[in-house]
């Protein structure tokens, strides 16, 4: 087990460093953020003055080494366009994305895993057919379109949903502790703020769940179908075990590992991949922060978000490997 963990950590570290290096080089080749920051009336002397000040005239290798050195102390540098510390800006935006993605993934799991299990155990039924339809629709519909559609229906027509900006209503005074407004509301016992935060989360979470988490439904159904065909399941049924026990206690446990893996990968992907939904719902997350920085060729925020997304993905994947090894004795034995 220890060697398994060490191997995984080495792989993770290499992945992160290579990713950072590639993004570092690519962003610097795309253009000059100083010219954009100073505006069209800037002279070449002004541009050069600020490039020197920001260290952008140094050799690329030196810039990268300086960046890595600062990264060790979790210093993501300074935004060229705002002059603010990227670390502090990331701390403002990251909790919003984590909260959104966590709830979206949970929503996906809560809705799609039971549906997938039910659809697999009732093959040929209406529910199974509907599940297939939901999967097809979910992977086909663009997330920004679905988001706008849900806003139009639930906010504009039915007047059920709150307006698509902000994370909580203006009248809810929630002091930020973790940055997760749902948890912060619970901490102080502010029920109305909690409900408000959940209401603002509802539509963006549903949008992400329906478009990004829907493969969980397909995988659950397929895994369960495959496992339910196994000889030991037939034996269990023949021995007269209740169907519910056969499905949930025997079959589901064996289908769980790949479902967990996919869920974790989805979560990791969504940390950097929810930008369209964040834009449509004016959700102040790091995806939006990165895109707006990219428009200005502001390297530091783009790099910071890339690192966070990569580290999150790698960490989650590592965690899933670990849990899989614990849950499935065959993986433990192999490793």
């Amino acid at each position, binding site marked *: 087990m220890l060697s398994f963990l060490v191997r995984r950590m080495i792989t993770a570290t290499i992945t992160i460093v290579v990713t950072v290096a590639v993004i570092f080089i690519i962003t610097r080749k795309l253009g000059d*953020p100083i010219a954009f920051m100073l505006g069209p009336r800037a002279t070449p002397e*002004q541009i050069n003055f600020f490039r020197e000040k920001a260290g952008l005239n140094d050799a690329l290798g030196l810039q990268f080494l300086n960046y890595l050195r600062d990264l060790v102390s979790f210093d993501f540098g300074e935004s060229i366009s705002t002059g603010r510390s990227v670390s502090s800006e990331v701390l403002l935006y990251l909790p919003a994305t984590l909260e959104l993605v966590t709830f979206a993934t949970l929503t996906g799991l809560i809705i799609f895993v039971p549906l997938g299990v039910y659809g697999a155990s*009732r093959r040929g039924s209406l529910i199974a057919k*509907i599940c297939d339809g939901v999967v097809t629709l979910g992977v086909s519909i663009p997330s920004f379109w679905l988001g*706008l559609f849900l*806003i139009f229906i639930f906010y504009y027509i039915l007047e059920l949903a709150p307006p698509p900006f902000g994370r909580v209503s203006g009248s809810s005074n929630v002091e930020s502790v973790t940055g997760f407004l749902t948890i912060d509301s619970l901490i102080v016992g502010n029920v109305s703020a909690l*409900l408000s935060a959940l209401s603002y989360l509802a539509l963006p979470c549903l949008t992400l769940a329906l478009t990004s988490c829907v493969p969980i439904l397909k995988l659950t159904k397929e895994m369960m179908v495959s496992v339910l065909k196994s000889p030991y399941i037939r034996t269990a049924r023949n021995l007269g075990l209740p169907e519910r026990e056969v499905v949930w206690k025997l079959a589901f446990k064996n289908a769980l590992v790949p479902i967990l893996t996919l869920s974790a990968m989805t979560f990791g992907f969504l940390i950097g991949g929810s930008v369209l939904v964040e834009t449509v719902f004016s959700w102040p997350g790091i995806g939006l922060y990165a895109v*707006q920085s990219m428009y200005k060729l502001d390297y530091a925020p783009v790099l910071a978000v890339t690192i966070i997304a990569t580290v999150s993905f790698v960490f989650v994947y590592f965690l899933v490997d670990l849990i899989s090894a614990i849950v499935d004795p065959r993986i433990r034995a192999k490793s």
Partner: protein
Amino acid sequence: MTSKSDLNEGKFQVSRRDLLKSAGIFGVAFASVPLLSACGIGEEAGVSGSGSKVLNLGISGDPSVLDPAKGQQEIANMLMKNTYAQWTDYEEIEVGDGNKRSDTTKVIGDALESITVEDGGLTIRCKVREYTFPSGNPVTADDFIYTVERTLALKYGSIFVLNVIGVTDSSQVKKVNDMEFTITLPAPSPIVGGMLHDQTMGVLDSVALKENAGSDDAWGEQYLTTNSLGGGAYTLKEFVSGTKIVLESNPEYHREEPFFTSVNMQIIPDPNTRALLLKSGEIDVATGISLASASRLVGEDGIDVVQIPSRLQNFMGLMANKAPFNNKKLRQAVAAALPYDQLSSETLYDLASPPTGIWPTNAPAAVPQDNNPFVTDIDKAKQLLAEGGQPNGFSFDCEVSTADDDAKTLSVAVKSALAEVGITMNIRELAPAIYQENLNAKSMQSWIQTNLVDYVDDPYYHLFLWFTSTSVLNWFAYNSPALDSVAKKLANELDDGKRASLATEAQKILNDDVPLIVLAEPKYVLCVRSDISGVLQEPDGLLRIRSLIRE
């Protein structure tokens, strides 16, 4: 023995029980969403409605900066315009429906009580208005002098404003007493009043800034990344990055208190969402709406699409230092081939007017010329192509920014029109920063950009900014010794009659040379709820919140 799975496999069975179960499962799963959303009912983002003194404004993103010395981005400039007092202002003219525009021929004081020109234009005497900053510190000559020193020392974009009127050293600004100072210029400048209205000339509370600046932050740059120290109509109450900005009216401001005592600027990146929120009444003003979206709001219940004639222009730049547009005949041919009436009425939804020449029609110095190149004449276009050595047409690339929706729309219409005379235009859409870099490097063959305007409405400034061989915005590599000569004469000419004559001469030269094409002259368009009026159209196109009222 048959198992349940064997019985179910391969058969599509729809029993009543199945239907009920399906409805139940999916109903519970997806009905939870609207139920959860409904927890938000009754809670409002801001208090709006009849008589409400709270204005809800939808903006597209964060202001990059709060420091006037660094102002470049539109949202940042708008914020500074409303939270800082500028040195000067303009008188206002009613344009109907309760809306107004600035009279750029009449400069008045804002933070300055008066500004007088002496010594043949070499000395500008500035008298400071008596009022205080929100901190309680009185506004004094020291604050103006500090603002100049800081701008020159930091060297950000705002230095342009001072340099262009001839101020390059802080020793040129001298204190006479606490409420008066002078600026010494190397040569008379006709644009001093207009330049000092720039939002980057917001007057800083120097006492408060020096108190709050850290020991390693001599000019308070770090402090001003998250704070505002102006004495404008509003103060910055709250700034939640990525979410909202809240302003409160400044009781110390020297003008009467604005109608809206509180302003919530909600950050709503998607323009479609902003338009929807305006329709629902959640916001009172939606900024950054393209003309296409604005046209769909015209006639909507509860919405006014305010349209005020402006000096805005949509340009198609033609690079004069490389083929094909180093050939004047080909530039003229492209100009003659475009359907200007159609571009304004159809492509831009009648929210623009056709151009009458290179000069903005609504500029006071504009004089209709008989050599207006922007008249559609297909036969003339073909003749010019032949004269230019391209009787069968030619092809070129045209770059537009992905952030400029109207430019993208125009590029398609222009491409289509040019195809009819055999000219092939390839549209290249670029990310904003890369587009801007290409503009600065003049690496394009042509480009289209919309809503361009000089912040100062003056013929010298217009030439200085765009058309001389050394102009910073000469993004088309135009080089005309004749035009340079006119600009040089205008630079220090204070006589109105002579200035008008020189401006006319410049217009003739430009119309003949066609360094760029004015595709259309858009109106200043602002989408507001119908109970909002008092929109003030400023030369810089920035929204002035203090003039707005709710009926």
